[in-house]
C-alpha cells in the first residue's frame, strides 16, 4: 500500500516537474493586446480619435481608457473587428466622427511657397520638399490623414478621393433583383 502511494506520488512529482519545465521552456510568446489592436487600426495616424497616432489609441483601448468607436478611417468594419477581438458588442462610430472614402493629399504646386509646415505635420513623411522649394506629396505613401491641410498658410493642399481603377476594382456583393414571378 505504502509502496503504491510512494510510486504514485513520485510519478506525480516527476511528471509535474516535466510539465512545469516544459511550460517555461516551450512558452509561446503571445502578441500583447496592444499589438493586436494596433494591427486592426488603419495606421492613418490622423489623430481623429483624440490620441496622437494609432499606437497610443491602441494602448488606450487596451487599458480601457478609450472606446472602440473612435476611429473614423477604420469605419464600421474596424469597429466590428475590434469588438470581435475584445469580445464586446460593436457600436456605431462616435459622435462627430464620420467615415470618409480613402483620399490622398494633393499640393497645388503653383501656390506652394515652400514653407515646410506640411512636411513637419505629415506623420508618415510622405511629403517631399525643402525650405523655399516646391513641395509634393508621394501618393503611394499618403494615408489621407488630412493633418497637412490645416497648417498650410496659403491653403494649397486639398484632399482628393482615390478613384477606383481596374486593379483596385472589387467584384460587388451579388445583389439579387427581386422580380415578380407568375
Amino acid at each position, binding site marked *: 500500500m505504502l509502496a503504491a502511494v510512494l510510486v504514485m506520488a513520485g510519478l506525480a512529482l516527476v511528471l509535474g516537474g516535466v510539465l512545469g519545465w516544459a511550460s517555461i521552456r516551450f512558452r509561446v510568446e503571445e502578441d500583447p493586446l496592444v499589438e493586436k489592436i494596433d494591427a486592426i487600426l488603419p495606421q492613418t495616424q490622423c489623430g481623429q480619435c483624440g490620441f496622437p497616432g494609432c499606437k497610443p489609441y491602441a494602448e488606450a483601448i487596451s487599458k480601457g481608457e478609450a472606446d472602440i468607436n473612435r476611429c473614423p478611417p477604420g469605419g464600421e468594419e474596424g469597429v466590428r473587428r475590434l469588438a470581435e477581438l475584445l469580445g464586446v458588442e460593436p457600436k456605431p462610430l462616435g459622435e462627430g466622427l464620420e467615415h470618409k472614402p480613402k483620399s490622398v493629399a494633393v499640393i497645388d504646386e503653383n501656390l506652394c511657397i515652400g514653407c515646410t509646415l506640411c512636411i513637419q505635420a505629415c506623420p*508618415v513623411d510622405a511629403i517631399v520638399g525643402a525650405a523655399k522649394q516646391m513641395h509634393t506629396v508621394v501618393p503611394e505613401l499618403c494615408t489621407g490623414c488630412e493633418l497637412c491641410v490645416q497648417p498650410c498658410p496659403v491653403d494649397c493642399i486639398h484632399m482628393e478621393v482615390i478613384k477606383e481603377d*481596374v486593379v483596385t476594382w472589387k467584384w460587388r456583393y*451579388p445583389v439579387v433583383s427581386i422580380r415578380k414571378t407568375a
Partner: protein
Amino acid sequence: MRTGNPPAAGARGRRLYDFPGGVHPEGHKAVSTGRPIAAMPLLPRYVVALRQHIGEPARAVVQIGERVLRGQLIGRPEGYVSVGVHAPTSGRVVAVEPRPVPHPSGLMDLCVVIDADGEDRAVDLAPLDWHRMDPSALRNRLREMGLAGLGGAVFPSFIKLNPGAKRQIPILILNGAECEPWITCDDMLMRERASEILLGAHVMRHMLGAEQVLVGIEDNKPEALACMAEAAAGSDVEVVGVPTVYPGGGGKQLTYTLTGRKTPSKGLTTDVGVQVFNVGTAYSLYRAVYLGEPLVSRVVTVTGHVGSPRNLEVRLGSPISDVIRAAGGELPGATGEVIGGPMMGFDLHDTSAPITKAVNCVLVRNAEHFPPKPAPMPCIRCGECARACPAALQPYELYWYARHRDFGKTQSYSLFDCIECGCCSYVCPSHIPLVDYYRFAKSEIWAREREKQAADLARERHEFRIFRLEREKREKAEKLAKKASERMDSGAVATDDPEAARKKALLAAAIEKAKQAKAGIRPKNVDDLPADKQREIAAIEARRQQLASTAEPSDTRSPTPDS
C-alpha cells in the same frame, strides 16, 4: 467525390485520368467553324491598352503626334511581371488617355490611340537565333516582344518559360482542349496552322528542357486532332484526344487528365513538373522567334447572334464594334455581348473597347440561347455543386461563408483553389450565382491584403518618424552639451596655462579698447536737429545706457569663468 479513376484509353493507348466533377454544357462550336480564319481588314483607328497582361501595365514610350510602325514598341514592360505592348499598324499616335477596356468593371484604363496611315509598314523584323541565344537573353527578348498566355489568363510567357534554377520541367503540355462552349479560335488555329504551333512548341521545349511534349485536344474536335497528329507525325510529340468534359481545358485539369499528376492546393502545375501553354501562345511564340514579329494580333472567335459567325485574325487594339461588324454585325434581337465564353466570360459594357491579348471570343447574346436567369432561391444543400466542382471543393460551404463575409473561413475552405469555372452555378438547382460570390470574396480578400500592406508601411514610416524626431532632439541636446563642456574646458585650461591666460588678457584689453573707441564716436548727423529732437535722442541714449548697465550684471551671472 470521384477521383482518379476510371482511366479511359486515349489515342495511342495513353492512359488518361478522369478529374473529379465537370459538366457537359452544349458546345455550339460548329456555329463558328464553318469559315476559315480571315484577317480583319485594316481599320482607321486602333486603341491599344497598356494593361493587357497580368502584372504591372506597360509604360507608354511614345508621344502624341509621333509616327509609329507596325511592331514598334509603344509600351515598355515595367516591373518584373510585365511585357511590352506594340503598335498594331503604322500610323500616328493621337492620344494616350484612359479609354473603355474589356474588363468586368466597365472602367477605363490607359490606352495608346493610333490613327492608321493605311500603309501598314512594319519595323525591321529579324528572326531570333533561338538555338544559340543565351536562355536569359531569349526570355528577355520575348518579354519585350509582348508574349503572354493567350488562353485567357495572359500571364507573361517569359516567366513560365524559365525552368528555374533547380526545377525540373520534364513535361510540356500544349493546351488545345478549348472546353468553353462557343469558342473555336484554338480549334481553327490547330486546323490551319498546326505545323507553326509545333514549331513554337519546339522552342518552348528547348527553353524548358522538357523531355516530353503532349498536346491535349478534346475529342469533340476531330479535325484539329487529325491536323495536329499529321503535323506531329514523325516527331515524338504526342497528340492526345481527351474526353470532352468542361472544364477539361483548365491547366490543372488537363495536367491530371494527361499525366495523372495532381497539382497541390495553392500550387502550380510546375510543382509536379508540368508546364502548360495554350496552342495560341505556341503559335505567337513561333511568330516571335521565326518571323521576329512581336505580339500584335491574335485569333478571335466572333460568334453567337451575328451575321456570319467566324474566327478572325484581329490586330490587338481593334475596337470590338468593328470586329463584330467584320463578322456580319449583330442581328436584330441581340441582347448584349460577352467577352469569353458563357461559363467564364463577362458582360461587355462598351463595344468601343478594344481587343486585347486576353480576348479570345466575342459572343453576342440573344434571348434564345441566353434567356434571363431565373431568380435565385435559397440553397437547399443538395450537394450538386460539390459533385460538379473540378477542384474538389465544397462550393455550398464557400457560398455560405462568402455570403456572410466570413473571409477567413472561405480561405480555410480553399477559396483560392477555385478556378471560377462556373460548374457549380451551372448545376445549381436554386440558380444561385455561386461564382459571383467567390469572385466577391476573392476581391475583398485581395483588397484587405492591399490595405494591410499599406497600413504596415504607414506604421513603419510613422514609427521611423518618431524615432527620427527623437534622435534629432537627442543629437541637438548632445551637441549643445558638448559645446558647453568645451567652453568649460577652455576656461579651465586658461587658469592653468600661462600662455592661454596671457592671450585671454590681451583679448580682454582689445575688447575694452574697442568699447572705449565706440563710446568716443558720436553720430555726425544729429548736430543740426532741433532742440526737441536732440532731447528725444538724449532720452533714448539714456535709456540705452540704463539697459546696458542692467544687462551688464546679468553677464556676470553667466557661467563663463572670465567674468
